[in-house]
C-alpha cells in the first residue's frame, strides 16, 4: 500500500505497542536491582545492588523477609516438565501418526484431543480434585497434576506433529518397506530423522507450557509446591524485589532453553544437508 502517512502512523503505533508489551518487564528488571533489605518494590532506586539475587540463593544475612521457597520447587517443576515433555511428545507423535490415514470418527477424536488445550485449567483442576477425592486417591504433583499437564500439552504436540506429517512425503517410507526393511527400523532410520525438527518443537512446547503451568497444578498437586505455585503464594502477601529478581532469572533460563532449541535445530538442519551432499557425491 502506498498510504505513507498511514504507514508512518501505524509504525509509530506498533512501536508504542511493543513498549506496552515490554514496559512492565523492563521496570521489573530494573527494580530487581533495588537495594535490600530496606528497599521496597518501587521507585526510586535507593542504591543499585544485587542484594535480592543473593537473597534468593540464601547468601544474605537473615532478615525479616523470608526467602522464597524455590529450591525444592525448582527441582519439582523441572522433573514435572521433563515427565510431561516425554509423555506428551510420545502421545502426540503416535496420535498424529494414526491421523495420517483416514479413519471413521477422526473428527470426534480430533476435537477430543484439541479440547485439552481449550478447557481452562481451573475447571480440569477442580474436576481432577473431585475425582481424586471420590476415589480416595492422594493428590500429588507427580500424579494428579502430572496427568493434567499432559492433557494440556499433548494437544500442542499433536498439532505440531500433524502439521509436520502433512508435509511429509510417504514414498520414502514405502521405498524402505519395499526394500524389506522392518517397520520399526524404517521408523528409526527414515521417519524419525525426518520428523525430528517437529519432535523438537513439540518437546519445547510441552516443556515450557508445563514449566509455567499453575492453574491446573493449583488444585491437583496436594501439599508440595511447584515453582509457579510458590510465586502464586506471594500474591496475597507483600511483594518484595526478590520475586522480581526471580522473574529475571526465570526469563534468562527460558532464553537459555530457547537457545538450546535453536542450536539443536541448526545441528539437525546441518546434518540433513551433509547427508544430502554425501548422497550427491
Amino acid at each position, binding site marked *: 500500500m502506498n498510504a505513507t502517512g498511514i504507514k508512518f502512523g501505524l509504525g509509530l503505533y506498533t512501536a508504542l505497542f511493543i513498549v*506496552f508489551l515490554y514496559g512492565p518487564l523492563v521496570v521489573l528488571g530494573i527494580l530487581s536491582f533495588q537495594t535490600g533489605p530496606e528497599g521496597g518494590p518501587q521507585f526510586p532506586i535507593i542504591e543499585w545492588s544485587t542484594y535480592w539475587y543473593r537473597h534468593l540463593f540464601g547468601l544474605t544475612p537473615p532478615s525479616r523477609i523470608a526467602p522464597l521457597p524455590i529450591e525444592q520447587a525448582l527441582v519439582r517443576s523441572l522433573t514435572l516438565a521433563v515427565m510431561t515433555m516425554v509423555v506428551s511428545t510420545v502421545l502426540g507423535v503416535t496420535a498424529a501418526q494414526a491421523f495420517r490415514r483416514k479413519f471413521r470418527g477422526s473428527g470426534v477424536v480430533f476435537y477430543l484431543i484439541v479440547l485439552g488445550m481449550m478447557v481452562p485449567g481451573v475447571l480440569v483442576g477442580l474436576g481432577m480434585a473431585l475425582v481424586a477425592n471420590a476415589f480416595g486417591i492422594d493428590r500429588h504433583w507427580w500424579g494428579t497434576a502430572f496427568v493434567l499437564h499432559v492433557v494440556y500439552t499433548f494437544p500442542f504436540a499433536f498439532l505440531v506433529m500433524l502439521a509436520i506429517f502433512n508435509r511429509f512425503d510417504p514414498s520414502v517410507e514405502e521405498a524402505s518397506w519395499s526394500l524389506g526393511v522392518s517397520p520399526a527400523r524404517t521408523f528409526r532410520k527414515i521417519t524419525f530423522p525426518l520428523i525430528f525438527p517437529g519432535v523438537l518443537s513439540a518437546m519445547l512446547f510441552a516443556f515450557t507450557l508445563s514449566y509455567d503451568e499453575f492453574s491446573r497444578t493449583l488444585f491437583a498437586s496436594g501439599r508440595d509446591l511447584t515453582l509457579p505455585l510458590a510465586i502464586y503464594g506471594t500474591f496475597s502477601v507483600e511483594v518484595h524485589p526478590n520475586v522480581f529478581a526471580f522473574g529475571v532469572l526465570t526469563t534468562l533460563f527460558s532464553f537459555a532453553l530457547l537457545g538450546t532449541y535453536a542450536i539443536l535445530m541448526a545441528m539437525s538442519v546441518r546434518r540433513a544437508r551433509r547427508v544430502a551432499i554425501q548422497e550427491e557425491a
Partner: protein
Amino acid sequence: MTMAATSQDRPAEAAASQDGKRSDRTFWLLAPGVIWMLLFLVLPIAMMVYVSFWTQTTFKIEPTLTLKSWITFFSSDTYIGALWTTVRIWLIVLVATLVVGYPAALFVGLFVRNKTLSTALLVLCVIPFWTSFLIRVLAWRPMLGKEGAINMILMNLGIVDQPIEVLLFSELSVIIGMTQIYCVFMVGPIAFMLGRIDPSVLEAAQDLGAGFWRIFRTIILPLSMPGVVVGAIFVSVMVLGEFATAAALSGRKVNLLGNIIVTQVGSLKWAFAAVAGVVLTVLMGIVVAALLRVVDLRKEL
C-alpha cells in the same frame, strides 16, 4: 501370524486382513491418547457436573443428589455478581485487545512487506511469553502502584499533581493487565489473515480511486474477520478461565467465577465450586458457539 500364512493363498482375504491390520494399527496408535483424554479430561469434567448436585455439609460433600447448591448459587448476590463481573471483564478485555491489537496487526501483516521484518516483529511480540505468566502479571504492580512507574512519570511531567490511586487494586488494573497479557493472541491470527491478502487487490482499489478508509471497510476488514474470530476465541477462553490476574492486581475487589472456585475449594465447599465450574463451562460454550456463528471458519481458513 497364522492369519497371514493362510491368507497368502487367497488374494481377496489377504486384502481384507491387510485392511484389518491397518485399522488395528490406527486403533493402537490412538488408544493411549484417547484413553488419557477420556480419563483425565472428560471424566473430571463429568465429575464436576455430577458433584454440583451433591449435598454440601460444612466440611465435606455427600453423594445424595440435591439442587441446593444450585439454588444457593443463583439466589446469592455474591455469586451472581461474580457471574456478571466475569461477563463484563470478558467483554471489556475482548474489545480492548481488539482495539489495541488490530492496528499493530495491520502494520505487521499488511504494511510491512519485508518477510524478515514482519517475522522479527512477531517474534518480538512473542518473547514476553517466555517469562512466567505469573511474573508478567506481577510486573504490573510496580508499574501501576501509587509510587509506581506510571504515576512517577505523570507527576514528573506535571500532568497530575497527585498520584492516581485508581490505577492499582481496581477493576482498571485487572483490565490493563489482561489486555497486555492476551492481546498478542489477537495480533497473531489477524496479522496472519492480513498477510494473505493479495496486494494487487489493494492496488486495484487504489487505482480505481478508493481512499484508505473505503479500502479498509470494504476489503481489509472483511478479509481479516476469520483472524478476528480466531483471536477472539483464544482471548475469550483464556479470560473466562482467569483468576490469577484478578487475584494479583485487584486487591480482592474483583471476583471472577474463577476466583469464586478458588475460594470455595479453599474452604472445602466442593459442591459450590462445582456449581460455579459448571456455570463457567456453560458460559464458555455459549461464547465460543456464538463466535463460531459469526464466521464459518472451515470455509474461510
